[in-house]
Protein backbone atom coordinates (compact mmCIF):
# COMPACT_ATOMS: atom_id res chain seq x y z
CA UNK A 1 0.00 0.00 0.00
CA UNK A 2 1.42 3.38 -0.95
CA UNK A 3 1.46 6.12 1.67
CA UNK A 4 -1.39 8.57 1.78
CA UNK A 5 -0.14 12.03 0.85
CA UNK A 6 -3.29 14.11 1.23
CA UNK A 7 -6.03 13.07 3.58
CA UNK A 8 -8.97 15.46 3.60
CA UNK A 9 -11.79 14.70 6.06
CA UNK A 10 -15.10 16.53 6.11
CA UNK A 11 -13.49 19.85 5.33
CA UNK A 12 -15.48 23.06 5.15
CA UNK A 13 -14.07 26.51 4.70
CA UNK A 14 -15.58 29.98 4.72
CA UNK A 15 -13.81 33.22 3.89
CA UNK A 16 -14.02 35.94 6.49
CA UNK A 17 -17.22 37.95 6.15
CA UNK A 18 -18.64 35.42 3.71
CA UNK A 19 -21.99 33.91 4.52
CA UNK A 20 -21.63 30.74 2.54
CA UNK A 21 -18.91 28.16 2.73
CA UNK A 22 -16.51 28.23 -0.21
CA UNK A 23 -15.80 24.55 0.44
CA UNK A 24 -18.52 22.40 1.91
CA UNK A 25 -17.92 19.07 3.63
CA UNK A 26 -15.34 17.68 1.25
CA UNK A 27 -13.53 14.38 1.90
CA UNK A 28 -11.01 12.55 -0.23
CA UNK A 29 -7.51 11.18 -0.12
CA UNK A 30 -4.62 11.05 -2.54
CA UNK A 31 -2.11 8.17 -2.41
CA UNK A 32 1.59 8.64 -3.13
CA UNK A 33 2.44 8.68 -6.85
CA UNK A 34 -1.10 9.53 -7.95
CA UNK A 35 -2.02 12.03 -10.66
CA UNK A 36 -5.44 13.38 -9.72
CA UNK A 37 -7.47 16.16 -11.30
CA UNK A 38 -9.91 18.51 -9.63
CA UNK A 39 -12.26 20.00 -12.17
CA UNK A 40 -14.80 22.76 -11.82
CA UNK A 41 -16.07 26.14 -12.98
CA UNK A 42 -14.64 29.41 -11.72
CA UNK A 43 -16.08 29.94 -8.27
CA UNK A 44 -16.69 26.24 -7.67
CA UNK A 45 -14.27 26.23 -4.75
CA UNK A 46 -11.48 24.31 -6.45
CA UNK A 47 -8.81 26.97 -5.86
CA UNK A 48 -9.85 27.36 -2.25
CA UNK A 49 -9.53 23.62 -1.84
CA UNK A 50 -6.04 23.78 -3.34
CA UNK A 51 -4.98 26.31 -0.72
CA UNK A 52 -6.37 24.10 2.02
CA UNK A 53 -4.10 21.28 0.87
CA UNK A 54 -0.85 22.88 2.05
CA UNK A 55 -2.04 24.98 4.95
CA UNK A 56 -2.25 28.33 3.16
CA UNK A 57 -5.83 28.25 4.41
CA UNK A 58 -6.91 26.29 7.46
CA UNK A 59 -10.24 24.46 7.44
CA UNK A 60 -13.11 26.03 9.39
CA UNK A 61 -14.30 22.49 10.01
CA UNK A 62 -12.74 19.09 9.44
CA UNK A 63 -9.08 18.21 9.04
CA UNK A 64 -6.42 18.10 6.33
CA UNK A 65 -3.41 15.85 6.80
CA UNK A 66 -0.37 16.08 4.53
CA UNK A 67 1.98 13.09 4.81
CA UNK A 68 0.41 12.44 8.19
CA UNK A 69 0.86 16.00 9.48
CA UNK A 70 -2.15 18.08 10.47
CA UNK A 71 -2.14 21.42 8.61
CA UNK A 72 -3.78 23.08 11.61
CA UNK A 73 -0.75 22.32 13.77
CA UNK A 74 1.63 25.25 13.19
CA UNK A 75 4.62 23.15 14.28
CA UNK A 76 4.39 21.45 10.89
CA UNK A 77 3.68 24.45 8.63
CA UNK A 78 7.08 24.52 6.94
CA UNK A 79 7.42 20.74 6.73
CA UNK A 80 4.03 20.56 5.07
CA UNK A 81 4.81 23.27 2.56
CA UNK A 82 8.15 21.75 1.64
CA UNK A 83 6.54 18.31 1.18
CA UNK A 84 3.62 19.67 -0.83
CA UNK A 85 4.62 22.54 -3.11
CA UNK A 86 2.24 24.65 -5.10
CA UNK A 87 2.26 26.22 -8.55
CA UNK A 88 -0.19 29.07 -9.12
CA UNK A 89 -2.11 30.40 -12.08
CA UNK A 90 -0.30 33.61 -13.00
CA UNK A 91 3.26 32.83 -14.08
CA UNK A 92 4.40 36.40 -13.42
CA UNK A 93 3.15 36.66 -9.89
CA UNK A 94 5.08 33.80 -8.33
CA UNK A 95 8.62 34.48 -9.45
CA UNK A 96 10.50 36.43 -6.82
CA UNK A 97 14.02 36.94 -8.12
CA UNK A 98 15.43 38.73 -11.13
CA UNK A 99 17.48 35.74 -12.27
CA UNK A 100 16.14 32.23 -12.89
CA UNK A 101 18.77 30.51 -10.77
CA UNK A 102 18.16 32.85 -7.82
CA UNK A 103 14.47 32.20 -8.05
CA UNK A 104 14.91 28.45 -7.91
CA UNK A 105 17.11 29.02 -4.87
CA UNK A 106 14.44 31.05 -3.07
CA UNK A 107 12.67 28.11 -1.43
CA UNK A 108 15.97 26.46 -0.53
CA UNK A 109 17.14 29.63 1.17
CA UNK A 110 13.88 29.81 3.10
CA UNK A 111 14.24 26.31 4.53
CA UNK A 112 17.89 26.85 5.35
CA UNK A 113 19.61 24.50 2.90
CA UNK A 114 23.39 24.97 3.18
CA UNK A 115 24.89 27.11 0.40
CA UNK A 116 27.17 24.27 -0.71
CA UNK A 117 24.26 21.97 -1.41
CA UNK A 118 22.18 24.48 -3.37
CA UNK A 119 23.87 24.56 -6.80
CA UNK A 120 23.52 20.79 -7.21
CA UNK A 121 19.86 20.83 -6.33
CA UNK A 122 19.16 23.83 -8.55
CA UNK A 123 20.89 22.25 -11.50
CA UNK A 124 18.97 19.00 -11.05
CA UNK A 125 15.62 20.78 -10.71
CA UNK A 126 16.20 22.90 -13.81
CA UNK A 127 17.28 19.82 -15.75
CA UNK A 128 14.11 17.98 -14.69
CA UNK A 129 11.92 20.66 -16.24
CA UNK A 130 14.19 21.15 -19.26
CA UNK A 131 15.19 24.70 -18.36
CA UNK A 132 18.86 24.35 -17.49
CA UNK A 133 19.89 26.46 -20.48
CA UNK A 134 17.94 29.40 -19.04
CA UNK A 135 19.70 29.38 -15.67
CA UNK A 136 21.05 32.90 -15.95
CA UNK A 137 18.18 34.54 -17.78
CA UNK A 138 15.86 37.23 -16.42
CA UNK A 139 12.39 35.77 -15.87
CA UNK A 140 10.56 38.57 -17.68
CA UNK A 141 12.27 37.55 -20.93
CA UNK A 142 10.74 34.04 -20.81
CA UNK A 143 7.46 32.77 -22.25
CA UNK A 144 4.55 31.87 -19.98
CA UNK A 145 5.21 28.16 -20.27
CA UNK A 146 8.87 28.65 -19.46
CA UNK A 147 8.04 30.77 -16.42
CA UNK A 148 5.71 28.06 -15.13
CA UNK A 149 8.47 25.49 -15.55
CA UNK A 150 10.79 27.74 -13.54
CA UNK A 151 8.13 27.88 -10.83
CA UNK A 152 7.99 24.08 -10.87
CA UNK A 153 11.78 23.86 -10.62
CA UNK A 154 11.69 26.16 -7.60
CA UNK A 155 9.48 23.62 -5.88
CA UNK A 156 11.29 20.52 -7.14
CA UNK A 157 14.54 21.81 -5.68
CA UNK A 158 12.91 21.57 -2.26
CA UNK A 159 12.45 17.83 -2.93
CA UNK A 160 8.72 17.64 -2.27
CA UNK A 161 6.62 14.49 -2.35
CA UNK A 162 3.69 16.24 -3.99
CA UNK A 163 2.91 19.31 -6.07
CA UNK A 164 -0.47 21.02 -6.25
CA UNK A 165 -1.15 22.86 -9.51
CA UNK A 166 -3.75 25.57 -9.10
CA UNK A 167 -4.89 26.23 -12.69
CA UNK A 168 -1.25 26.43 -13.68
CA UNK A 169 -2.06 26.37 -17.41
CA UNK A 170 -5.09 28.69 -17.46
CA UNK A 171 -3.11 31.70 -18.65
CA UNK A 172 -0.86 29.90 -21.16
CA UNK A 173 -1.11 29.47 -24.91
CA UNK A 174 -1.60 25.93 -26.28
CA UNK A 175 2.13 25.48 -26.74
CA UNK A 176 2.89 26.51 -23.15
CA UNK A 177 0.06 24.35 -21.89
CA UNK A 178 1.50 21.29 -23.59
CA UNK A 179 5.01 22.07 -22.37
CA UNK A 180 3.93 22.34 -18.76
CA UNK A 181 1.55 19.40 -18.76
CA UNK A 182 4.03 17.00 -20.29
CA UNK A 183 6.76 18.17 -17.91
CA UNK A 184 4.44 17.37 -15.03
CA UNK A 185 3.45 14.00 -16.47
CA UNK A 186 7.13 13.15 -16.70
CA UNK A 187 7.81 14.16 -13.10
CA UNK A 188 4.93 12.02 -11.96
CA UNK A 189 6.16 8.99 -13.88
CA UNK A 190 9.89 9.29 -13.39
CA UNK A 191 10.17 10.87 -9.95
CA UNK A 192 6.99 9.47 -8.47
CA UNK A 193 5.85 12.98 -7.52
CA UNK A 194 2.23 13.01 -6.46
CA UNK A 195 0.23 15.50 -8.52
CA UNK A 196 -3.02 17.29 -7.76
CA UNK A 197 -3.98 19.05 -10.98
CA UNK A 198 -6.66 21.71 -10.64
CA UNK A 199 -8.05 22.86 -13.96
CA UNK A 200 -11.02 23.72 -16.07
CA UNK A 201 -9.58 22.15 -19.21
CA UNK A 202 -11.31 18.85 -19.96
CA UNK A 203 -8.51 17.63 -22.22
CA UNK A 204 -6.09 17.81 -19.31
CA UNK A 205 -8.42 16.19 -16.82
CA UNK A 206 -8.97 13.41 -19.35
CA UNK A 207 -5.27 12.54 -19.12
CA UNK A 208 -5.25 12.21 -15.31
CA UNK A 209 -5.84 8.96 -13.42
CA UNK A 210 -8.79 10.07 -11.43
CA UNK A 211 -11.06 13.10 -11.61
CA UNK A 212 -12.95 14.96 -8.90
CA UNK A 213 -15.59 17.43 -10.00
CA UNK A 214 -16.53 20.34 -7.78
CA UNK A 215 -19.57 22.55 -7.91
CA UNK A 216 -20.66 25.20 -5.43
CA UNK A 217 -18.02 24.11 -2.95
CA UNK A 218 -19.08 20.48 -2.99
CA UNK A 219 -17.53 17.41 -4.52
CA UNK A 220 -20.30 16.29 -6.86
CA UNK A 221 -18.72 13.57 -8.93
CA UNK A 222 -15.59 11.48 -8.98
CA UNK A 223 -14.22 8.65 -11.00
CA UNK A 224 -11.89 7.58 -13.75
CA UNK A 225 -11.89 9.95 -16.76
CA UNK A 226 -13.39 7.16 -18.90
CA UNK A 227 -16.47 7.01 -16.72
CA UNK A 228 -16.80 10.71 -16.13
CA UNK A 229 -16.51 11.83 -19.73
CA UNK A 230 -18.59 9.14 -21.39
CA UNK A 231 -21.77 10.87 -20.29
CA UNK A 232 -21.85 14.35 -21.89
CA UNK A 233 -25.38 15.04 -20.69
CA UNK A 234 -24.44 14.62 -17.06
CA UNK A 235 -21.46 16.92 -17.60
CA UNK A 236 -23.66 19.50 -19.26
CA UNK A 237 -25.82 19.57 -16.15
CA UNK A 238 -22.67 20.43 -14.17
CA UNK A 239 -21.97 23.24 -16.67
CA UNK A 240 -18.94 21.39 -18.02
CA UNK A 241 -18.14 20.25 -21.54
CA UNK A 242 -17.02 16.82 -22.59
CA UNK A 243 -13.73 16.75 -24.52
CA UNK A 244 -14.59 16.91 -28.27
CA UNK A 245 -13.56 13.30 -28.95
CA UNK A 246 -15.81 12.01 -26.19
CA UNK A 247 -18.64 14.19 -27.47
CA UNK A 248 -18.42 12.80 -31.01
CA UNK A 249 -18.07 9.24 -29.74
CA UNK A 250 -21.19 9.70 -27.65
CA UNK A 251 -23.21 10.98 -30.63
CA UNK A 252 -22.10 8.10 -32.82
CA UNK A 253 -22.91 5.61 -30.10
CA UNK A 254 -26.39 7.06 -29.77
CA UNK A 255 -26.91 6.64 -33.49
CA UNK A 256 -26.20 2.99 -33.08
CA UNK A 257 -22.50 2.67 -33.78
CA UNK A 258 -21.12 0.07 -31.35
CA UNK A 259 -18.19 2.08 -29.95
CA UNK A 260 -16.91 1.12 -26.52
CA UNK A 261 -17.58 3.43 -23.59
CA UNK A 262 -14.94 5.87 -22.46
CA UNK A 263 -13.15 6.83 -25.66
CA UNK A 264 -11.16 9.98 -24.87
CA UNK A 265 -8.21 10.27 -27.20
CA UNK A 266 -7.80 10.73 -30.93
CA UNK A 267 -5.82 7.47 -31.16
CA UNK A 268 -8.48 5.35 -29.46
CA UNK A 269 -11.17 6.88 -31.62
CA UNK A 270 -9.29 6.37 -34.88
CA UNK A 271 -8.59 2.76 -34.01
CA UNK A 272 -12.16 1.86 -33.10
CA UNK A 273 -13.83 3.74 -35.90
CA UNK A 274 -11.61 2.41 -38.63
CA UNK A 275 -12.09 -1.13 -37.36
CA UNK A 276 -15.85 -0.63 -37.55
CA UNK A 277 -16.05 1.23 -40.83
CA UNK A 278 -13.69 -0.77 -42.97
CA UNK A 279 -15.76 -3.23 -44.80
CA UNK A 280 -15.50 -6.46 -42.80
CA UNK A 281 -15.84 -8.50 -45.99
CA UNK A 282 -12.61 -6.92 -47.19
CA UNK A 283 -14.14 -6.24 -50.62
Amino acid at each position, binding site marked *: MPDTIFDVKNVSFAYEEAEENAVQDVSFSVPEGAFYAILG*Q*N*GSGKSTLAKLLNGLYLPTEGTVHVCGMDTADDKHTWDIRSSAGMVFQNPDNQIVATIVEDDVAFGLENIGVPAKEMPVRIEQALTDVGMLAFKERAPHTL*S*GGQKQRIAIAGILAMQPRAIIFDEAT*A*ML*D*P*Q*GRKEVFSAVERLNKEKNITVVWIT*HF*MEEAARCQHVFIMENGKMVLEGAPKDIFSDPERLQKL*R*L*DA*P*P*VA*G*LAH*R*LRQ*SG*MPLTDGILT*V*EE*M*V*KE*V*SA*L*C*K*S*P*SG*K
Partner: protein
Amino acid sequence: MQITFRQVSHTYQPGSPFQSTALSNIDFTVESGEFLALIGHTGSGKSTLAQHINGLLKPTSGQVLIDGSDIHADGYSKKTLRQKVGMVFQYAEHQLFEETVEKDIAFGPKNLGLEEAEIAVRVQEAMEKVGLEYDEFKEKSPFELSGGQMRRVAIAGVLAMRPEVLILDEPAAGLDPMSREEMLQLIKALHEKGTTIVMISHSMDDVARFATRAIVLKKGAIAMDGTPAEIFRHADELEDMGLDVPVICKLARDMQKAGLPLEDGIYEEDKLYEALLHLWKGGAADAQ
Protein backbone atom coordinates in the same frame (compact mmCIF):
# COMPACT_ATOMS: atom_id res chain seq x y z
CA MET B 1 -15.61 49.52 -44.77
CA GLN B 2 -12.45 48.09 -46.16
CA ILE B 3 -9.10 47.68 -44.43
CA THR B 4 -6.03 47.27 -46.60
CA PHE B 5 -2.47 46.52 -45.57
CA ARG B 6 0.01 47.44 -48.26
CA GLN B 7 3.53 46.08 -47.77
CA VAL B 8 3.42 46.78 -44.04
CA SER B 9 6.58 46.11 -42.05
CA HIS B 10 7.21 46.89 -38.42
CA THR B 11 10.47 46.91 -36.52
CA TYR B 12 10.61 47.39 -32.77
CA GLN B 13 13.31 49.68 -31.38
CA PRO B 14 15.04 50.19 -34.72
CA GLY B 15 18.70 51.08 -34.50
CA SER B 16 19.09 49.78 -30.94
CA PRO B 17 20.70 46.50 -29.93
CA PHE B 18 17.18 45.25 -29.11
CA GLN B 19 15.98 45.77 -32.68
CA SER B 20 13.54 43.11 -33.82
CA THR B 21 11.38 42.75 -36.87
CA ALA B 22 7.81 41.95 -35.91
CA LEU B 23 6.13 42.21 -39.30
CA SER B 24 7.51 42.05 -42.79
CA ASN B 25 5.70 42.94 -46.01
CA ILE B 26 2.17 42.23 -44.89
CA ASP B 27 -0.39 42.50 -47.70
CA PHE B 28 -4.09 41.80 -47.30
CA THR B 29 -7.53 43.33 -47.46
CA VAL B 30 -10.44 42.80 -45.10
CA GLU B 31 -13.91 43.54 -46.44
CA SER B 32 -17.00 44.53 -44.48
CA GLY B 33 -18.75 41.66 -42.78
CA GLU B 34 -15.81 39.28 -42.60
CA PHE B 35 -14.94 37.32 -39.49
CA LEU B 36 -11.18 37.13 -39.77
CA ALA B 37 -9.14 35.00 -37.41
CA LEU B 38 -5.47 35.80 -36.90
CA ILE B 39 -3.57 32.66 -36.02
CA GLY B 40 0.04 32.16 -35.07
CA HIS B 41 2.49 31.27 -32.41
CA THR B 42 3.16 33.65 -29.52
CA GLY B 43 5.60 36.11 -31.05
CA SER B 44 4.45 35.56 -34.63
CA GLY B 45 3.32 39.17 -34.90
CA LYS B 46 -0.46 38.77 -34.49
CA SER B 47 -0.85 41.41 -31.80
CA THR B 48 1.51 43.78 -33.58
CA LEU B 49 -0.54 43.40 -36.73
CA ALA B 50 -3.81 43.98 -34.89
CA GLN B 51 -2.47 47.15 -33.29
CA HIS B 52 -1.71 48.53 -36.74
CA ILE B 53 -5.34 48.34 -37.79
CA ASN B 54 -6.44 51.14 -35.46
CA GLY B 55 -3.22 53.09 -35.63
CA LEU B 56 -1.86 52.28 -32.16
CA LEU B 57 1.31 51.27 -33.94
CA LYS B 58 2.67 52.92 -37.03
CA PRO B 59 4.24 50.84 -39.81
CA THR B 60 8.00 51.27 -40.14
CA SER B 61 7.32 51.03 -43.84
CA GLY B 62 4.22 50.45 -45.93
CA GLN B 63 0.67 51.73 -45.51
CA VAL B 64 -2.51 50.89 -43.67
CA LEU B 65 -5.53 52.10 -45.63
CA ILE B 66 -9.09 52.39 -44.49
CA ASP B 67 -11.53 52.79 -47.35
CA GLY B 68 -8.59 53.77 -49.48
CA SER B 69 -7.13 56.50 -47.29
CA ASP B 70 -3.85 56.18 -45.40
CA ILE B 71 -4.57 56.38 -41.67
CA HIS B 72 -1.19 57.97 -40.99
CA ALA B 73 -1.54 60.66 -43.65
CA ASP B 74 -1.68 64.25 -42.38
CA GLY B 75 -5.22 65.28 -41.66
CA TYR B 76 -6.56 61.78 -41.08
CA SER B 77 -8.49 62.05 -37.83
CA LYS B 78 -7.33 59.64 -35.13
CA LYS B 79 -10.64 60.18 -33.40
CA THR B 80 -12.62 58.93 -36.39
CA LEU B 81 -10.25 56.01 -36.70
CA ARG B 82 -10.61 54.98 -33.05
CA GLN B 83 -14.37 55.29 -33.41
CA LYS B 84 -14.51 53.15 -36.54
CA VAL B 85 -12.11 50.47 -35.36
CA GLY B 86 -12.65 49.24 -31.81
CA MET B 87 -10.02 47.20 -30.08
CA VAL B 88 -10.48 44.78 -27.20
CA PHE B 89 -7.18 43.76 -25.64
CA GLN B 90 -6.30 40.47 -24.00
CA TYR B 91 -7.59 40.37 -20.41
CA ALA B 92 -9.57 43.50 -21.25
CA GLU B 93 -10.97 43.63 -17.70
CA HIS B 94 -7.59 44.96 -16.58
CA GLN B 95 -8.36 48.34 -18.14
CA LEU B 96 -11.45 49.09 -16.02
CA PHE B 97 -11.01 52.09 -13.74
CA GLU B 98 -14.28 53.89 -13.03
CA GLU B 99 -16.44 53.70 -9.92
CA THR B 100 -19.44 52.31 -11.74
CA VAL B 101 -20.02 50.10 -14.74
CA GLU B 102 -22.00 52.87 -16.40
CA LYS B 103 -19.22 55.44 -16.07
CA ASP B 104 -16.61 53.05 -17.33
CA ILE B 105 -18.56 52.20 -20.45
CA ALA B 106 -19.19 55.92 -21.01
CA PHE B 107 -15.45 56.67 -21.12
CA GLY B 108 -15.07 55.99 -24.85
CA PRO B 109 -18.16 57.89 -26.04
CA LYS B 110 -17.16 60.79 -23.79
CA ASN B 111 -13.76 60.92 -25.43
CA LEU B 112 -15.55 61.15 -28.76
CA GLY B 113 -17.17 64.34 -27.45
CA LEU B 114 -20.76 63.07 -27.63
CA GLU B 115 -23.74 64.65 -25.85
CA GLU B 116 -24.82 63.30 -22.45
CA ALA B 117 -28.11 62.01 -23.81
CA GLU B 118 -26.42 60.21 -26.68
CA ILE B 119 -23.87 58.71 -24.31
CA ALA B 120 -26.64 57.36 -22.07
CA VAL B 121 -28.32 55.73 -25.05
CA ARG B 122 -25.09 54.13 -26.20
CA VAL B 123 -24.14 52.82 -22.77
CA GLN B 124 -27.49 51.13 -22.43
CA GLU B 125 -27.26 49.71 -25.94
CA ALA B 126 -23.74 48.39 -25.37
CA MET B 127 -24.72 46.71 -22.12
CA GLU B 128 -27.62 45.03 -23.85
CA LYS B 129 -25.31 43.74 -26.56
CA VAL B 130 -23.00 42.07 -24.07
CA GLY B 131 -25.90 40.72 -22.03
CA LEU B 132 -25.59 42.81 -18.89
CA GLU B 133 -28.92 43.99 -17.47
CA TYR B 134 -28.72 47.82 -17.45
CA ASP B 135 -30.67 48.48 -14.25
CA GLU B 136 -28.98 45.69 -12.39
CA PHE B 137 -25.38 46.53 -13.27
CA LYS B 138 -25.11 50.25 -14.07
CA GLU B 139 -24.47 51.37 -10.49
CA LYS B 140 -22.21 48.45 -9.57
CA SER B 141 -18.48 48.83 -9.20
CA PRO B 142 -16.75 46.93 -12.00
CA PHE B 143 -14.36 45.53 -9.43
CA GLU B 144 -17.02 43.55 -7.59
CA LEU B 145 -18.09 41.58 -10.66
CA SER B 146 -16.96 38.10 -11.69
CA GLY B 147 -14.11 37.75 -14.20
CA GLY B 148 -16.44 36.98 -17.10
CA GLN B 149 -18.72 39.92 -16.28
CA MET B 150 -15.79 42.31 -15.97
CA ARG B 151 -14.62 41.31 -19.40
CA ARG B 152 -18.06 42.02 -20.80
CA VAL B 153 -18.04 45.47 -19.26
CA ALA B 154 -14.72 46.11 -20.98
CA ILE B 155 -16.12 44.95 -24.31
CA ALA B 156 -19.21 47.10 -23.80
CA GLY B 157 -16.83 50.05 -23.28
CA VAL B 158 -15.55 49.51 -26.81
CA LEU B 159 -18.95 48.73 -28.34
CA ALA B 160 -20.35 51.99 -26.96
CA MET B 161 -18.22 53.75 -29.55
CA ARG B 162 -20.22 51.89 -32.23
CA PRO B 163 -17.22 50.60 -34.16
CA GLU B 164 -17.69 49.12 -37.62
CA VAL B 165 -14.74 46.84 -37.07
CA LEU B 166 -14.02 45.09 -33.80
CA ILE B 167 -10.58 43.68 -33.10
CA LEU B 168 -10.40 41.16 -30.27
CA ASP B 169 -7.17 39.81 -28.85
CA GLU B 170 -7.85 36.40 -27.30
CA PRO B 171 -11.28 37.38 -25.99
CA ALA B 172 -11.85 34.03 -24.27
CA ALA B 173 -8.43 33.61 -22.62
CA GLY B 174 -8.56 32.53 -18.99
CA LEU B 175 -12.32 32.02 -18.91
CA ASP B 176 -13.87 28.74 -17.82
CA PRO B 177 -15.67 26.64 -20.46
CA MET B 178 -19.13 28.10 -19.92
CA SER B 179 -18.05 31.75 -19.84
CA ARG B 180 -15.89 31.01 -22.86
CA GLU B 181 -18.79 29.72 -24.83
CA GLU B 182 -20.95 32.70 -23.82
CA MET B 183 -18.20 35.08 -24.90
CA LEU B 184 -17.85 33.40 -28.29
CA GLN B 185 -21.60 33.40 -28.83
CA LEU B 186 -21.62 37.10 -28.04
CA ILE B 187 -18.97 37.77 -30.68
CA LYS B 188 -20.83 35.61 -33.15
CA ALA B 189 -23.98 37.65 -32.53
CA LEU B 190 -22.09 40.91 -33.10
CA HIS B 191 -20.81 39.54 -36.38
CA GLU B 192 -24.26 38.48 -37.46
CA LYS B 193 -25.54 42.00 -36.80
CA GLY B 194 -22.99 43.38 -39.23
CA THR B 195 -19.82 44.16 -37.28
CA THR B 196 -16.63 43.14 -39.03
CA ILE B 197 -14.62 40.97 -36.63
CA VAL B 198 -10.86 40.47 -36.46
CA MET B 199 -10.11 37.94 -33.73
CA ILE B 200 -6.72 36.79 -32.52
CA SER B 201 -7.08 33.26 -31.23
CA HIS B 202 -5.01 30.34 -30.08
CA SER B 203 -7.94 28.01 -30.19
CA MET B 204 -8.28 26.37 -33.57
CA ASP B 205 -11.58 24.89 -32.51
CA ASP B 206 -12.94 28.42 -32.13
CA VAL B 207 -11.51 29.44 -35.49
CA ALA B 208 -13.11 26.40 -37.11
CA ARG B 209 -16.49 27.20 -35.59
CA PHE B 210 -16.74 30.94 -36.12
CA ALA B 211 -14.32 32.46 -38.62
CA THR B 212 -15.11 33.05 -42.27
CA ARG B 213 -11.45 33.55 -43.05
CA ALA B 214 -8.14 32.92 -41.33
CA ILE B 215 -4.68 34.38 -41.75
CA VAL B 216 -1.80 32.34 -40.37
CA LEU B 217 1.27 34.34 -39.40
CA LYS B 218 4.71 32.91 -39.08
CA LYS B 219 7.66 35.00 -37.96
CA GLY B 220 5.96 38.22 -38.97
CA ALA B 221 4.92 37.11 -42.45
CA ILE B 222 1.68 35.68 -43.82
CA ALA B 223 2.06 31.91 -44.16
CA MET B 224 -1.53 31.09 -45.14
CA ASP B 225 -4.64 33.07 -45.96
CA GLY B 226 -7.98 31.49 -46.74
CA THR B 227 -11.25 30.07 -45.46
CA PRO B 228 -11.00 27.71 -42.47
CA ALA B 229 -11.68 24.81 -44.84
CA GLU B 230 -8.72 25.79 -46.99
CA ILE B 231 -6.46 26.38 -44.00
CA PHE B 232 -7.28 23.16 -42.20
CA ARG B 233 -6.65 21.12 -45.31
CA HIS B 234 -3.01 21.84 -44.48
CA ALA B 235 -3.22 20.34 -41.01
CA ASP B 236 0.26 18.82 -41.24
CA GLU B 237 1.85 22.14 -42.15
CA LEU B 238 0.07 23.85 -39.27
CA GLU B 239 1.40 21.24 -36.90
CA ASP B 240 4.89 21.71 -38.29
CA MET B 241 4.57 25.38 -37.40
CA GLY B 242 3.86 24.29 -33.83
CA LEU B 243 0.20 25.22 -34.12
CA ASP B 244 -2.77 23.15 -33.06
CA VAL B 245 -5.38 21.92 -35.45
CA PRO B 246 -9.01 21.38 -34.43
CA VAL B 247 -9.52 18.00 -32.81
CA ILE B 248 -12.13 17.06 -35.42
CA CYS B 249 -9.69 17.92 -38.17
CA LYS B 250 -7.04 15.76 -36.53
CA LEU B 251 -9.51 12.87 -36.19
CA ALA B 252 -10.56 13.12 -39.84
CA ARG B 253 -6.98 13.25 -41.06
CA ASP B 254 -5.81 10.33 -38.92
CA MET B 255 -8.81 8.25 -39.96
CA GLN B 256 -8.02 9.03 -43.56
CA LYS B 257 -4.46 7.90 -42.97
CA ALA B 258 -5.80 4.73 -41.38
CA GLY B 259 -7.53 4.03 -44.68
CA LEU B 260 -11.03 5.42 -44.31
CA PRO B 261 -12.30 7.05 -47.51
CA LEU B 262 -13.14 10.45 -46.03
CA GLU B 263 -13.03 13.62 -48.10
CA ASP B 264 -10.20 16.10 -47.52
CA GLY B 265 -10.36 18.91 -45.00
CA ILE B 266 -13.24 17.97 -42.71
CA TYR B 267 -13.08 20.15 -39.61
CA GLU B 268 -16.67 20.41 -38.40
CA GLU B 269 -18.07 17.91 -35.93
CA ASP B 270 -21.40 17.59 -37.72
CA LYS B 271 -19.74 16.80 -41.01
CA LEU B 272 -17.46 14.13 -39.56
CA TYR B 273 -20.36 12.65 -37.66
CA GLU B 274 -22.42 12.36 -40.84
CA ALA B 275 -19.52 11.01 -42.86
CA LEU B 276 -18.65 8.35 -40.29
CA LEU B 277 -22.23 7.28 -39.87
CA HIS B 278 -22.54 6.99 -43.62
CA LEU B 279 -19.34 4.95 -43.90
CA TRP B 280 -20.31 2.68 -41.07
CA LYS B 281 -23.76 2.02 -42.53
CA GLY B 282 -22.22 1.41 -45.93
CA GLY B 283 -19.69 -0.95 -44.37
CA ALA B 284 -22.38 -2.72 -42.41
CA ALA B 285 -24.46 -3.06 -45.58
CA ASP B 286 -21.50 -4.55 -47.42
CA ALA B 287 -21.06 -7.10 -44.70
CA GLN B 288 -24.53 -8.46 -45.15
